[in-house]
C-alpha cells in the first residue's frame, strides 16, 4: 500500500494530484467523467473581486502538441463564488478546493484573499497570466513587485498560500526568493508560455487577443526544467504543472522536485488522465520500492 498523502504548504492532500486552474472550471463540471477520489484537491478557475468578461472570441487555437489560449480570465466575482459556487462545490465534491486568485492591483489581490479565507482550503495566486494586461502578468515579471503583492496577500489570509510563477523569465531563482521572503507557503509552476498563432491566408492572428499562452504536451520538458531550478533554490513545496499527458510526465515532475502535480490541458481530450496519473504513480512507487510518493520528491539521480 503506497502512501499517497502529501502536504502542500499546509494543505493536506490525500493524493498529490490536482487540476490546473482554468482547465477544470469551478470544480463540478467534470462530474461523471473524472474520478474525483483520485484528486487531492481541485484548483478552481481564477477569481477576482468583481466579475470579469474575459477576452473577445476566438479565444483558442489548437497547435501541434498543444493549445494556445487567451480566455482572459472570464469569471464570476468573489461574491458569487463564495455565495453560490463554493456551496455547490461542497455539496457535490468531497475534495479540498484551491481557489486561484488574481487582481488588477495589490489591494484587489489582498481583498479577494481575505474574502476567501475560511471559505476555501488554499489559495493559488496567479501573478503570471499572459492574457490580461491589468491582472497577473505584470506582478510576476519583477521580483520586487512580486514580493509586495505576495506580502500583501500573506497579511490578508491565514490559508496555505501558493504562488503561481511565470515561465518566461531569464532565471526563476529571484522570483522563488521573492515569494519565500514574502511568506508564501508553496510555489506552482508553470503557467502557460506566451505564444502566437497566425492564419497565413488572412494574415491575421488566429486569437482575437493576438497572443495567448501555450499549454499541453509540448511544454512539459520546459516545465520540468523550471521545477528543477526552483527546487534547487528553495525548500518550499512545489506544485508542478505543464503538459502532463501520462503518469511518466508527472513522475518526472516529482523527481525534479515537485511535492504535488496538476493535470490541465490533457483533461480536455482525456478526463481519465487523473486516474491514469494516480494509478501509474502508485505502480511506479511499488516497482521502484518507494513507500510514499513523498519519497519521490527530488529523488533525481544527478
Amino acid at each position, binding site marked *: 500500500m503506497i502512501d499517497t498523502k502529501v502536504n502542500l504548504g499546509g494543505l493536506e492532500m490525500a493524493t498529490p494530484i490536482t487540476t490546473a486552474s*482554468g*482547465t477544470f*472550471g469551478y470544480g463540478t463540471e467534470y462530474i461523471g467523467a473524472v474520478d474525483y477520489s483520485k484528486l487531492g484537491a481541485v484548483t478552481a478557475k481564477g477569481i477576482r473581486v468583481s466579475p470579469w*468578461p474575459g477576452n473577445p472570441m476566438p479565444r*483558442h487555437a489548437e497547435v501541434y*502538441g498543444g493549445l494556445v489560449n487567451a*480566455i482572459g480570465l472570464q469569471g464570476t466575482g468573489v461574491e458569487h463564488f463564495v455565495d453560490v459556487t463554493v456551496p455547490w462545490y461542497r455539496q457535490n465534491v468531497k475534495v479540498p478546493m484551491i481557489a486561484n486568485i488574481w487582481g488588477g492591483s495589490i489591494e484587489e489581490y489582498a481583498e479577494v484573499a481575505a474574502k476567501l479565507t475560511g471559505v476555501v482550503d488554499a489559495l493559488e495566486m496567479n501573478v503570471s497570466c499572459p492574457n490580461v494586461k491589468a491582472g497577473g502578468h505584470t506582478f510576476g515579471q519583477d521580483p520586487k513587485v512580486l514580493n509586495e503583492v505576495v506580502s500583501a496577500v500573506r497579511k490578508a489570509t491565514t490559508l496555505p498560500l501558493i504562488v503561481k510563477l511565470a515561465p518566461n523569465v531569464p532565471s526563476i531563482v529571484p522570483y522563488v526568493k521573492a515569494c519565500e521572503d514574502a511568506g508564501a507557503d508553496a510555489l506552482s509552476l508553470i503557467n502557460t508560455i506566451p505564444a502566437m498563432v497566425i492564419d497565413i491566408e488572412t494574415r491575421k492572428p488566429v486569437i482575437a487577443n493576438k497572443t495567448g499562452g501555450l499549454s499541453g504536451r509540448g511544454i512539459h520538458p520546459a516545465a520540468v526544467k523550471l521545477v528543477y531550478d526552483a527546487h534547487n533554490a528553495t525548500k518550499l513545496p512545489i506544485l508542478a504543472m505543464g503538459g502532463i499527458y501520462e503518469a511518466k510526465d508527472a513522475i518526472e515532475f516529482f523527481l525534479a522536485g515537485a511535492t504535488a502535480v496538476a493535470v490541465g490541458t490533457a*483533461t*480536455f*481530450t482525456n478526463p481519465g488522465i487523473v486516474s491514469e496519473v494516480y494509478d501509474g504513480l502508485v505502480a511506479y512507487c511499488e516497482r521502484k520500492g518507494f513507500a510514499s510518493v513523498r519519497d519521490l520528491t527530488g529523488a533525481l539521480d544527478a
Partner: protein
Amino acid sequence: MLDEKCKVLVHQEIGSGYRYLIVEAPKMAAELVPGQFVHVKVPALEMSALRRPFSVFDATDGMVVILYKTVGRGTAALNGVQEGDEINILGPLGHGFPTECSGTALLVGGGFGVAPLHFLAKRLPGKKILFAGGRTQNDLLAIDRFQLIPNTELKLATNDGSVGAKGFVTLPLDETIAELKAKGEKFELFTCGPDGLLKAVTDRALANDAPGWISCDRHMVCGVGACYACIQKTVRGNSRCCIEGPIFAAKDLIWE
C-alpha cells in the same frame, strides 16, 4: 455525462465529403435529447490537444448517429476510423432543443446543420416543416431520412437552383411564415447551420414574436463548461455554448 468507449458500427461515406458515423452507446443514446452534442476523441490525432464536437443526427436503439462533413484536420483524421474500432465519446453535453412546440415547428437547416433537426423532428410531436438549404443538391442531406418522419413536410433550396428554390433557404421560409401569419397560426423556429443562417432565423423569430431556438456551434475545447473558450454573447453576458447552449433562445442572443 459519460466518457464512453464506443464501438463503431457503421462509418459510411454518402458523397461530397459527408459521412454517417454510427456507434454503439446504449447509455448515452438513452439520455440524449435533440440539440445536445457529443465530444469525440479522434484516434489518429494523438498529438492534438482537443476533441471534436458533433451534433447528434439520431439516438435510438442503443446507437448514436453522427452526420458530419470533412472540413479540417480533425474530421479528416476521423475519416480513418474503421467499423469495429472503438472511439471515446463524451456526452450527452449541453442543453438541447425544447421537445414540444406550440403551433407548427419550422426547422431550418443549412448544410450538415440538418443533423440535429433530424433527431428533433423525430421527437417533436405535431406538424413540422423542414427547410433544408445548401450550395447544391449534394449539400442537401438525409432528405430520404426526413421523408420517413411522420407529419413532416420538406421545403428545399439550393444556391445554384439544382433542387428546390434557387437561393437561400430563407426564401421558402419567408413564404411559409407569411402564409401561417395570414391564417393566424402559431409557429416556432428551430435552426442549425452557418452563422448567417442562425442570425437570419433569429431576426425572423424576433420580428414575428415567435419562439426561436438557435443552435450556436463554435469551436470547442472542453465541451463541459470548464474552459470558457466557446463564447456566444447573450443578454446574460459571455455565455458558454457548450453548457449554457448550444441551443439558445433567439431573444437571448446578441449578434455582433
